[in-house]
């Protein structure tokens, strides 16, 4: 067998062909399951897409590089379940383009963060993490108090709709208004918002300042939505109970 390799190395075309064959086995094993992903990853009936404001917050999460230190995937290990909650399902990130699972945890995992802390805490923590967690090494993000740019939101929704996220024409057209509505629950725009997204998305003045729609509003709305888009992972936990 070693002789075969010895001879193969002398025939460059044969060597190239052999390398392609060997490497493609690894590739096929990884890629092949994706051809049937629609059938293998079952989308839970209660899975909702991000609202425009949450989506804007997600873009900020990516822009600020939060994913570099925070994962969004509870691994299927007993200790992880004990600390964070049920392990993450593939279906939970069905509408995530790109997914933000991450693999490095300088900070804690955020997959089950939604609803754990108050909006006020998130705002104080993002502006200066040391003000609430003295030993934190997370950077401060004081500039998040600037006004949110919603201009591209409709286009973002339209792009995601092409990738299979269930945004309809109405949602795409009203994206900017809906982003504002979610942080102004007492406004008249709220009716349209709830018509399109239902009553499940939390609608509050996330940053505590009703006079402006800020990047903080968007990011906190996004953080509070993490792990709340579907109850499916909680069902896997209950089903395993003996």
């Amino acid at each position: 067998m070693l002789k075969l390799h010895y001879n193969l190395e002398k025939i460059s075309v044969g060597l190239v062909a052999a390398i392609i064959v060997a490497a493609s086995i690894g590739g096929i094993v990884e890629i092949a399951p994706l051809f049937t992903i629609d059938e293998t990853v079952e989308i839970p009936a209660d899975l909702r897409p991000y609202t425009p404001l949450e989506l804007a917050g997600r873009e900020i999460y990516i822009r600020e590089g939060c994913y570099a230190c925070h994962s969004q995937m509870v691994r299927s290990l007993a200790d992880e379940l004990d600390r964070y909650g049920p392990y993450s399902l593939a279906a939970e990130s069905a509408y995530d383009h790109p997914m933000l699972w991450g693999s490095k945890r300088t900070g804690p995992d955020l997959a089950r963060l939604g609803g754990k802390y108050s909006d006020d805490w998130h705002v104080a923590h993002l502006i200066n993490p040391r003000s609430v967690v003295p030993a934190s090494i997370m950077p401060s993000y004081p500039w998040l108090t600037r006004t949110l740019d919603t201009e591209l939101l409709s286009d973002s929704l339209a792009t995601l709709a092409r990738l299979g996220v269930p945004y309809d024409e109405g949602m795409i057209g009203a994206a900017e208004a809906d982003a504002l509505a979610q942080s102004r629950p007492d406004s008249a725009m709220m009716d349209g918002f709830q018509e399109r997204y239902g009553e499940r998305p939390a609608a509050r003045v996330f940053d505590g300042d009703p006079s402006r729609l800020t990047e903080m509003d968007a990011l906190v709305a996004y953080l509070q939505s993490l792990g709340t888009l579907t109850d499916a992972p909680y069902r896997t936990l209950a089903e395993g109970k003996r």
Partner: protein
Amino acid sequence: MSNLTDPRNLPGADPHTGNRKIDPVTGYDTTGHDWGGITELNTAFPRIVIWALVLTFLYSVVAWILLPAWPIGRDYTRGLLGLDQGKEAVEGFHDLSGARQDWLSRFEGEGFPALQSDATLMATAMPAAARLFSDNCAACHGTLGRGGPGFPVLSDDSWLWSGDAAEIATTIRHGINADDPDTRYAEMPSFDWMARSDRAALAEFVAGLPNGSADFGSPAGVLFAENCTSCHGETGAGGLGIGAPPLTDAAVIYGQDPETVMQTLRRGRHGVMPAWSGRLSDAEINLLALYVAQLDHHGKGTQ
């Protein structure tokens, strides 16, 4: 045309035997390449690496048979051992929490005084409670329960409702101003309709309440009686159990200097404590309640 694979044609080889130069120091053959007098040893590939590779390949064949391995269409080969990481994790988690159940389950039904008087139980439970507290409560209330900016101190004797473990358990379970049908409410309305001068006078008055320098007969005292007493009590001593703090004990969450009170009057306060009933079990909530209830004794050295 000469045959390129014939060793005798390689550079540096003996044209009759095909042998290349043997390096006198190592005893190894050389490759025959010569770069201005520098030649390269033709060292054999280490045997141990070849064996490691062979063993790895053999293991992979065993693994294909025993473990989940190859994708086939909509399914995959599940392996003879039938392992499922998700199922294992859930079972492991239930084993983990099951091991705690022998003492933790007592927190589901028994009354707080009975639990607290059981020293053996407390010796097991309190360290576990401390970890639970660090993981869930410390972000806002601090690792020692000493509070933070806008977040209440838990290690003192001031409570909006009560320092009683049962009341604390209710707060943890349903939260304050939270998304829970049974949540507690603690809402300080905004007094931005009030003239700035009136608000400033009221702020001075409220700031003076803890040290007794507030004059109830003054115009600000009248403003206080008209606007504040229905929630904070006639003397500002609170204790009505409606989420309005006493203003006389200098333990107001947000601070009681005139400037802060001005802010509170203008914008109101609407602090949120999330409801934990979906995230923590009933027993865990009761355990935490007991832990928090005894936090306030630490400062006084009674426990």
